[in-house]
């Protein structure tokens, strides 16, 4: 009886383990499968998938990934998880991710959840199935804290895009410059009510308070909101000089038009996702001159001072006949495929534990700047692309050009403020 039970146990254990074992071994010519489960309906998700496909095509054109002397093409499996759409619950996104892991038997994931809320919940899933993921959209630093707290369990989760902490560092650098240049010291905060935006705004608010800035108000908007007039009127009434914005929803683009209609004499600076791409100038009726908008990762905007970013941006434009519109996602998504490829070749296997150890050792000059991971599996961001990955702040000129104004290593033009902002009475 005991022997029979033991045999049943062995068979069950075998059946449970076989899928993982078979998933971790490739026959010559078998494809390396990379999953892209994300909110494909968003600009960031859609363009990130295109960037991933572009990297895969480039790698495949050169023969693919070399493992144990054999070449393996990269196959991309995309899945729409809609986690950024209003009202879509996190469990729905989790189901989508689990499905792509189990059905498509992906060896790794890139891009990943759009919303940080979904990322946090996905971490356990990735740990359960031992699937390495290089996230390129969700930005909460809470995932890094979780990794540092339990590195063995969550070692499969990496992030190549900017996180809220580094974004706040970019913003504080810009705000310090604006204070130095124009003497601005009064800010009104407006953000979308989602985890990453709340985190970023809270960090910036702390910096403002610490540095003696006057915060005239703080308004949070649910995803989908498109009327910002009340907050803009408050900012105007209280004499704000800076309107800090932090939004990633398509509806937020209209904020700039409303700000111009109400004539708020403050410089708008922060991140409004629809304002990031070069097509925004035409979309928003050429009314966005003066706006300061962040680009979360270099490469999503070209820079004459950093050729790899320029090359990626132009190659994308050539391949898809359209420029990148999103300021967040595509460049690190492209980069992530190369990080994976190199890590697989270093580890000489796709076995998850060996692969994550190899990813940790990454040190490459990529399109987003230098790519290295810290203890929380986050790519290190800074201000010099030869040393770290870089996020930039650009400003729309009145002629409809995007000019990088921060950091100094990549500056193309000095920051300026419209006359009606500097002299509101006139």
């Amino acid at each position, binding site marked *: 009886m005991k022997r029979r039970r033991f045999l049943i146990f062995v068979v069950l254990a075998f059946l449970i383990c076989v899928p993982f074992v078979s998933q971790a071994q490739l026959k010559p010519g078998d494809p390396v499968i990379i999953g892209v489960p994300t909110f494909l309906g968003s600009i960031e998700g859609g363009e990130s998938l295109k960037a991933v496909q572009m990297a895969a095509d480039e790698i495949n054109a050169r023969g693919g990934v070399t493992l144990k002397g054999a070449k393996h093409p990269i196959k991309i499996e995309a899945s729409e998880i809609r986690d950024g759409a209003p009202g879509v619950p996190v469990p729905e996104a989790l189901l989508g991710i689990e499905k792509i892991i189990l059905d498509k038997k992906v060896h790794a994931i890139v891009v990943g959840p759009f919303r940080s809320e979904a990322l946090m919940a996905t971490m356990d899933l990735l740990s359960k199935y031992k699937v390495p993921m290089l996230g390129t959209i969700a930005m909460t630093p809470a995932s890094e804290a979780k990794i540092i707290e339990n590195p063995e369990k969550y070692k499969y989760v990496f992030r190549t895009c900017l996180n809220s902490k580094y974004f706040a560092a970019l913003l504080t650098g810009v705000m310090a410059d604006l204070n130095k240049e124009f003497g601005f010291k009064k800010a009104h905060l407006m953000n979308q009510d989602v985890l990453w935006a709340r985190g970023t705004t809270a960090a910036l608010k702390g910096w403002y308070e610490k540095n003696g800035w006057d915060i005239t108000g703080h308004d949070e908007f649910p995803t989908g909101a*498109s009327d910002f007039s009340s907050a803009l009127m408050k900012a105007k009434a209280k004499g704000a000089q800076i309107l800090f914005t932090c939004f990633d929803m398509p509806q937020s683009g209209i904020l700039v038009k409303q700000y111009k209609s109400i004539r708020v004499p403050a410089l708008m600076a922060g991140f409004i996702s629809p304002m990031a791409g070069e097509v925004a100038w035409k979309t928003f009726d050429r009314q966005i001159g003066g706006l300061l908008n962040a680009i979360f990762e270099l490469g999503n905007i070209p820079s004459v001072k950093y050729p790899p970013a320029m090359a990626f941006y132009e190659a994308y434009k050539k391949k898809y006949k359209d420029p990148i*519109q999103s300021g967040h996602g595509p460049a690190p998504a492209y980069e992530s495929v190369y990080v994976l490829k190199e890590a697989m070749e270093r580890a000489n296997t796709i076995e998850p534990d060996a692969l994550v150890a190899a990813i940790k050792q990454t040190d490459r000059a990529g399109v987003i700047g230098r790519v290295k991971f810290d203890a929380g599996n986050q790519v290190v961001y800074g201000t010099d692309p030869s040393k770290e990955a870089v996020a930039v702040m650009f400003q729309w000129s009145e002629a409809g050009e995007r000019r990088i104004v921060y950091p100094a290593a990549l500056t193309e033009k000095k920051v300026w403020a419209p006359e009606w902002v500097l002299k509101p009475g006139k």
Partner: protein
Amino acid sequence: MLQGTLIYGFVNSVILALIALGFNLTFGISGVANFAYGALYIFSAYTAWMLLTWLKINYLISIVIAVLLTSLLGGLIYKFILLRVRGMPISEVIASFGIGLSILEFFRFLGFVGSEYTLPVFIDGSVSIGETYIDIQRLLIVVIGIALVSILYLFTHYTKTGLAFRGMAQEERTALILGINSDKMATFSLAIGSGLAGVAAITILPLGQVAIEGGYSALLNALAVCIVGGLGSTGGILVASVLIGYAQTFTATYIGSHWMMIVSLIAILVILIIKPSGLFGKQKELEERI
């Protein structure tokens, strides 16, 4: 700031009234709660955008075609789908909601997602009223809203079809005895209601962006206004629009923008507890008295 809040609150009220007019008209006449209303609202805006951007048709002509197509779609929805479940309110709601979902999600499937879906304002620029700057488009919304309510009043009081509409709204069986074709009138009411959704979308959305989610929020706003005002009561929706419009604007200004979106939900809850038929509704008044 108070002056600005009052002005923007009034504009917001007119926006809500514009959104709810078509839904209310359809329900008042045919008794059909058209849950595809939000989808028709967005359908109209996307159609105008496609005509304007892809086919490069003049904006005014694009608007007219979009509204007419929306109207036609509404009529067809009734003729080929809702007519079959007429008189079964739950089936009507399920069918119309299903149609709405299909339309909206079909746009998503086709890739109508992103910030490029904007409609131009009719007249660019802003003017100041006292110390408050307001864009001309918002003023036009007020003008169009008032004009539309007036036209609807004249239509329902002085035209043969309008009088037939009112007859249907008052007592369908009696209207039938008087030779009013109730199915035909109900088809018209769906078509006109949908056309009004189209007019609302074309007028309001240049202030924002054409997005699929806008369809859901338009339906929610229309429902909130109609439930608070009383389903089928035009006077009721005007009062409800003012109440909810100002409540939303004051909430956003003095409490927090974050809370603005739940104002309409709270309004629905409160009215359902206090007076389920709405402020001016007749639908359940007898039951309420009992």
